[in-house]
């Protein structure tokens, strides 16, 4: 393209800050990736499949949910749990779209693939004209850290043997507790989480794990009837 306007903030210093932000976020994602790899391997997923899922799915919480639910239920219920978790990505994707503007089809496919919770947050931070550049730098960093950390956790975790002795069976619920943290700090978040947890526990008395998790989603219904409350 002949005349791409260079955004004012796209000076070398802004670029250096962007790379630093991308690496910091990538390192945080790496901690999650190692935990996912270890948990997946200890649940019986072949390490190569855990790594492949990090490449093709590239949405951490849903991969965690897939392994947790599939291990105790079946892979399709596991996939449905992950898909419901990922519905939120539609929101980020649609919100980013007007800032991304026009580009080639392969470019748009790349932009979409690189959308994660973390890369979208970084992309939104800068001026609108820098959105695509920021999304790609952050997305590439998150992706590289995520896949490498999954491999480290999956192949390393496979060597550990009895995972209960290390308390690694607690990694699943503990990781989900950690994932809840930002939501719990939002108004109404604690009540929503408690409702979901209680529904799942009650459901667990009569149905298997997979459906019990899906039923927890019903907790959003009261919030939908009172649209004035903030999320």
């Amino acid at each position, binding site marked *: 393209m002949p005349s791409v306007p260079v955004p004012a903030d796209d000076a070398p210093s802004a670029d250096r800050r962007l790379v630093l932000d991308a690496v910091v976020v990538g390192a945080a994602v790496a901690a999650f990736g190692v935990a996912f790899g270890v948990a997946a391997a200890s649940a019986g997923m072949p390490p190569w499949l855990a790594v492949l899922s990090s490449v093709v799915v590239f949405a951490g919480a849903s991969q965690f949910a897939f392994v947790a639910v599939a291990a105790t239920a079946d892979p399709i219920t596991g996939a449905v749990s992950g898909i419901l978790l990922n519905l939120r990505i539609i929101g980020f994707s649609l919100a980013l779209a007007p800032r991304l503007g026009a580009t080639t089809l392969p470019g748009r496919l790349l932009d979409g693939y690189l959308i994660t919770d973390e890369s979208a947050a970084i992309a939104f931070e800068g001026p609108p004209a820098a959105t695509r550049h920021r999304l790609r730098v952050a997305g590439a960093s998150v992706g590289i850290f995520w896949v490498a950390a999954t491999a480290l956790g999956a192949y390393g975790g496979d060597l550990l043997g009895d995972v209960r*002795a290390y308390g690694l069976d607690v990694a699943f619920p503990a990781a989900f507790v950690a994932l809840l*943290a930002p939501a719990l700090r939002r108004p109404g978040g604690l009540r929503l989480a408690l409702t979901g947890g209680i529904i799942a526990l009650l459901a667990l008395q009569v149905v298997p794990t997979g459906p019990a998790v899906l039923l927890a*989603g019903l907790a959003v219904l009261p919030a939908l009837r009172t649209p004035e409350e903030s999320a």
Partner: protein
Amino acid sequence: MNPLTGPGAWAGIALLALATLAFKLVGPLAAGRVTLPPRLARAAQLLPTALIAGLVATQTFDAGVDDAKVAGVLAAVVAVALRAPFALVVLVGAVTAAGLRAAGVA
């Protein structure tokens, strides 16, 4: 057979991957021509909290009541309340359970 190996697991991951990619591509491919109905957008935004809480509950009690595991999850909750970063929360949970098991308490 472990449900995380073989064609069943591959199919599950393929399904999750395709749906997720479709969600990610909605924006870039529609390029601003599509918006989500507000109620659906809100549901999509709130669902993760409810589902992840459901995952905490089911993963904690999936094998009945295991005292060491419950203690580990409670320790993780305390770590979150103290604003510990992700890795520390998981570590605190695992170390608590491992410690109680090694001590033969639970």
